C-alpha cells in the first residue's frame, strides 16, 4: 500500500470511529436519562431519536448575533472536532497499530487537549452575548486548573514504557495494567477528562445555570456541530483512558480491537453516569481543588509509580 492510501485509510477509519462513538454517546445519554429519571424509552426510540434531532438541527435556521466574531464562531466547533479526531487517531486499536503513532504521540494528545481551551473560549467569546461569555471565562478558569493535573496523571502512565509513543505505552502493559501501577492515575484522568469536553459535574462552560453557556446562542447546524464536537472529545478521552490505564488492546481470549472498544465503552458509561448522578461543582471549588489537591495527588501518583518501577 502506498503512503497516500494508508494515510487515507487512517483518516477514514478515524472519522468512522469518531462518528460511531459520538452516536453511541447520544444513545447512551438518552438511555441513562430515562433510567435515572424514569419515563422509560424503548431501544428503538433511543437509537433513532439522535439522528432525528440532528436532521432537525440541519433543517433549522442558523442564527447569528449582531456584532459577532463570525470567523471565530465558525471555526470553534470545527477546531474542537478536529482536535477530538487527532486525539482519537493517537489511540492504538490493535496490537501495535494506531491510526497515527508518532514517537511523541503522548505530547500530541496533550497538545490537542490543551488546544480545546482555545476552541471553547473562542466559541463563548464570539457571539458577543453575556451568557456565552460567562461560559468562556469559566472554562478559562477550569482549563488552566485542570491542565496540569491532567498532564501529570497521564505522565505516570508513560513512566513504565520509557517512551512517549502511545503504542509503546500500551505495549508495556502486557503483564500489569497501568491502573495497578499508578492507582490514582485513572481517577484523576477521569475527573479532569470530563472537564475537557464539559461533561457532567464539571460541565461549567456549557452549564445549565447559564442556559447552555457557550452554546446558549447556538442554533441550527452550528449547535449540531458544537454538540457533536463535545461528544467526540468525550469519546477520544475515554478511548485514551482505556489505552493509557486499562491496557488498551491487552485482554484474554478475544482479539485486541474488541478489548479497546469494550474499555472505551466502559469509561464512556462512567462519564455518562456521572453526568446524571453528580451535581455541578462550583467553579471556584474546582479551581481550588485542582491546584491544592489534584496536583499534589498527581505528583504523589507519579512518585509512587516511580518507586514501583525502581
Amino acid at each position, binding site marked *: 500500500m502506498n503512503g497516500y492510501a494508508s494515510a487515507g485509510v487512517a483518516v477514514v477509519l478515524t472519522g468512522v470511529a469518531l462518528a460511531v462513538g459520538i452516536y453511541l454517546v447520544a444513545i447512551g445519554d438518552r438511555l441513562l436519562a430515562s433510567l435515572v429519571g424514569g419515563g422509560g424509552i424503548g431501544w428503538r426510540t433511543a437509537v433513532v431519536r439522535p439522528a432525528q434531532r440532528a436532521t432537525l438541527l440541519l433543517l433549522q435556521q442558523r442564527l447569528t448575533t449582531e456584532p459577532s466574531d463570525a470567523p471565530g464562531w465558525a471555526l470553534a466547533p470545527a477546531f474542537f472536532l478536529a482536535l477530538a479526531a487527532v486525539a482519537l487517531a493517537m489511540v492504538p486499536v490493535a496490537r501495535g497499530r494506531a491510526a497515527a503513532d*508518532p*514517537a511523541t504521540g503522548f*505530547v500530541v494528545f496533550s497538545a490537542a487537549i490543551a488546544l480545546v481551551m*482555545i476552541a471553547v473560549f473562542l466559541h463563548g467569546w464570539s457571539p*458577543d452575548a453575556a451568557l456565552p461569555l460567562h461560559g468562556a471565562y469559566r472554562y*478559562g478558569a477550569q482549563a488552566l486548573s485542570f491542565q496540569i493535573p491532567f498532564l501529570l496523571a497521564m505522565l505516570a502512565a508513560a513512566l513504565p514504557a520509557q517512551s512517549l509513543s502511545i503504542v509503546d505505552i500500551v505495549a508495556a502493559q502486557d503483564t500489569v495494567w497501568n491502573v495497578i501501577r499508578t492507582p490514582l492515575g485513572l481517577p484523576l484522568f477521569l475527573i479532569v477528562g470530563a472537564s475537557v469536553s464539559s461533561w457532567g459535574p464539571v460541565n461549567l462552560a456549557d452549564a445549565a445555570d447559564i442556559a447552555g453557556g457557550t452554546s446558549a446562542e447556538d442554533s441550527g447546524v452550528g449547535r449540531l456541530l458544537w454538540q457533536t464536537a463535545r461528544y467526540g472529545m468525550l469519546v477520544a478521552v475515554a478511548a485514551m483512558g482505556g489505552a493509557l490505564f486499562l491496557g488498551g488492546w491487552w485482554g484474554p481470549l478475544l482479539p485486541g480491537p474488541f478489548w479497546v472498544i469494550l474499555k472505551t465503552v466502559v469509561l464512556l458509561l462512567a462519564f455518562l453516569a456521572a453526568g446524571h448522578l453528580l451535581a455541578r461543582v462550583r467553579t471556584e471549588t474546582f479551581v481550588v481543588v485542582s491546584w491544592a489537591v489534584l496536583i499534589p495527588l498527581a505528583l504523589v501518583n507519579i512518585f509512587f509509580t516511580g518507586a514501583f518501577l525502581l
Partner: protein
Amino acid sequence: MNAPSWTTVLFWFFAAGGVITGYRVFRADSMVRAAFFLLASFAATGGLLVLLGAEFLGMVLILMMAGEMLVMAIIMVMYMMNPAGLNPMFMVHQHRTSVIAAVASFLALAVLPFVITLPARANPRPVAATAQLGTELLGDSMLVFQTAGVTLLATIVGTVALTSRRGRYGDAEEGSKEPPLEEEAMESP
C-alpha cells in the same frame, strides 16, 4: 509528487503561515484575535520545528502556547480599552521608527546567513531525541534544570505577591468595595 517536495511544501506553508499570522497580531482590532493569531504563529513555528526534526520541541511548543495564549487573551481583554475592537482603532506610537527598525533588523538578519559561512553538520535524526534530551537534562545540564526550577519558583512567588489582593497584609486599599455580607460567606471552603 515525492516525499522531499512534500516537506518543502509544508515548510513554506508553515513559514508563510507563521509570518502572516505574526503580522496579523499587530493588525487585529480584537484582542482575542490578536492573541489567537500569535498562537497560530507559534503553532506554525511548531510545525517548522517538527519538519526540522525536533518533533518533541515542536509539539511541546504548541502545548505550552495553547495555555499561554489563553492567558494572554484573558489579560489583554482585561486591560485594553475596547478589547473586542468594536471601535476599530490604531494605537501605535513612533510608527515610522518602528517600521524602519523592523525592516533594518530583517535585512541585517536575513542577509547574514548568506554572507557568512555556516557550519553544515546535519542532524542524523536520532530516533530517541527525547531520551537524549532527558539524559542531558539529568546529566550535564542538571544545574540548568534545577536553576530553572528555582527561577520558576521565584516567578510564582513574585506573581502571587504582585497580583494577589488577599495576602496576609490585608485586602485592597483604595477603590475597593467590600461585599455587604459576612466575609466567611464569600470565601471558598
